[in-house]
């Protein structure tokens, strides 16, 4: 079985595709940082920031709204910011009763929540654009060149590689359960919630054991081929004039957004 769903790279020959991965990675990280530093309610700056994603998406030949379409998968994570609505002091504009507790929503809280959603949504879109225009190995090499600790880079490499194996394994387990989730013509199928929970728990345990054993075998395979604790790479990356220009332009824009947000 091949899981392609999570393979985000879209091949292409655009100016964004051919940028040095280091430049793309640095710009993406600075872009996310810049969004984090935009003050609450700086809607114009958020709009410009989003415009930069749309522009880059268009430049990459993916269409300006490609990152937006893929970004909905990250939507549930925005809920993490929901507590801001009730936690920030301000003028009360509504409340939510939860049993003995009453949660009071404030105007500054809602502003904070909306800003958090805007920041993270725009940032996620830029990260999606990065992975759509850069092959995974190149991102990894960029990390290595940017002196990210070896151990972190290795963890990222294996996480990506074994994500697919783990998904395959999980799908196999789920299929095996489905195939045996039968119902007789008389009684009811299934079982109690408690029993179902136990089955699911056992499956999670199975998945852990299988991936643990697999990691042992992978390590043996690495040792067999001369691994001595240091991952080496062949790809040298070249930094061209174009990369300087695009990175500088992007950084200038980021400063501009910060300025717009504060006037």
């Amino acid at each position, binding site marked *: 079985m091949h899981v392609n769903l999570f393979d985000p790279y879209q091949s292409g020959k655009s100016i964004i595709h051919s940028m040095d991965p280091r430049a793309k990675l640095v710009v993406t990280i600075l872009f996310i940082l810049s969004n984090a530093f935009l003050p609450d309610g700086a809607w114009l700056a958020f709009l410009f920031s989003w415009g930069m994603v749309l522009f880059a998406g268009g430049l990459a030949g993916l269409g300006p709204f490609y990152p937006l379409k893929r970004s909905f998968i990250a939507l549930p994570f925005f809920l993490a910011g929901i507590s801001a609505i009730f936690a920030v002091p301000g003028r009360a504009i509504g409340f939510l009763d939860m049993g003995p507790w009453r949660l009071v929503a404030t105007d500054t809280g809602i502003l904070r929540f909306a800003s958090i959603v805007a920041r993270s949504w725009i940032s996620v879109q830029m990260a999606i654009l990065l992975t759509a225009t850069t092959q995974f190995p190149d991102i990894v090499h960029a990390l290595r060149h940017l002196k990210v600790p070896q151990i972190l880079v290795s963890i990222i490499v*294996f996480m990506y590689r074994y994500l697919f194996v783990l998904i395959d394994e999980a799908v196999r387990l789920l299929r095996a359960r489905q195939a045996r989730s039968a119902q007789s013509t008389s009684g009811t199928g299934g079982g109690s919630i408690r029993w179902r929970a136990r089955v699911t728990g056992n499956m999670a345990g199975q998945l852990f054991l299988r991936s643990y054993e697999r990691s042992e075998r992978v390590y043996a395979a690495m040792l067999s081929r001369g691994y001595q604790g240091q991952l080496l790479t062949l790809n040298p990356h070249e930094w061209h004039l174009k990369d300087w220009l695009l990175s500088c332009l992007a950084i200038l824009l980021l400063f501009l957004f910060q300025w717009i947000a504060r006037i």
Partner: protein
Amino acid sequence: MPIVHDQISAANPLLTRASAPGSHLLSIQNLSFSYPDGQAALQNVSLAIEHGEKVALVGPNGAGKSTLMLHLNGILSGDGQVLIAGLEVNKSNLPLIRAKVGLVFQNPDDQLFSPTVYEDVAFGPLHMGLPEEDVHRCVKRALELVGMQQYGDRLSHHLSAGEKKRVSIATVLSMEPDILVFDEPTAGLDPRARRGLIRLLKGLPLTTLVSTHDMHMVHEIFSRVVILDEGRIVADGPAELILNDVDLLESHGLESPFEPVS
């Protein structure tokens, strides 16, 4: 029934670079190993393989075939002695030994851990410390040998099982080992991929040790068969003799490729 002998071995220049004639390429003496839980996996195993020999290691599941193979490059180490081209397998020799023994694991997903095929094949030579031009040369040659030249840029998790198997073999061929060791190479392949693999194994001009349950492949490729059962070597001889000894094969949970089983 004619036995297919391997024709390539003697004349090939690849084989002459190894140690002096007469000495064994692989020699195992009185090797015993128990897993940490106390289960004895190998008991007093002795085996010698000459240059250019193609040997099949057969035996039921749990006989200790995989355990034995992991001893050949020091992933596991038990009591007894293992020599590769006269070099003892011990801690100080490990990097050298691992360059000499090319171990192909049963599951390609364990063997292929780099993002792209090219990087995976380059992993061995790169970590052996070869200079960059040599790494590229080794990778090209290895991919050519398995017929996967066009696959360098592909991501390994997108390949079919047969393709993954070929790439797995390329990942050890690129290290230019003295001996190739395969753990069940045909398991899980469709007939066409299996046929391609058999052709590939036949054509590889290297000393080869293969553990397998595929008795028809044994009959096609190998001139010598070793039967391992319950951690002991119970038979070791010409394929012709062993494959025709139905009683011997069946008493160790195997089948002859010639006789229909009653």
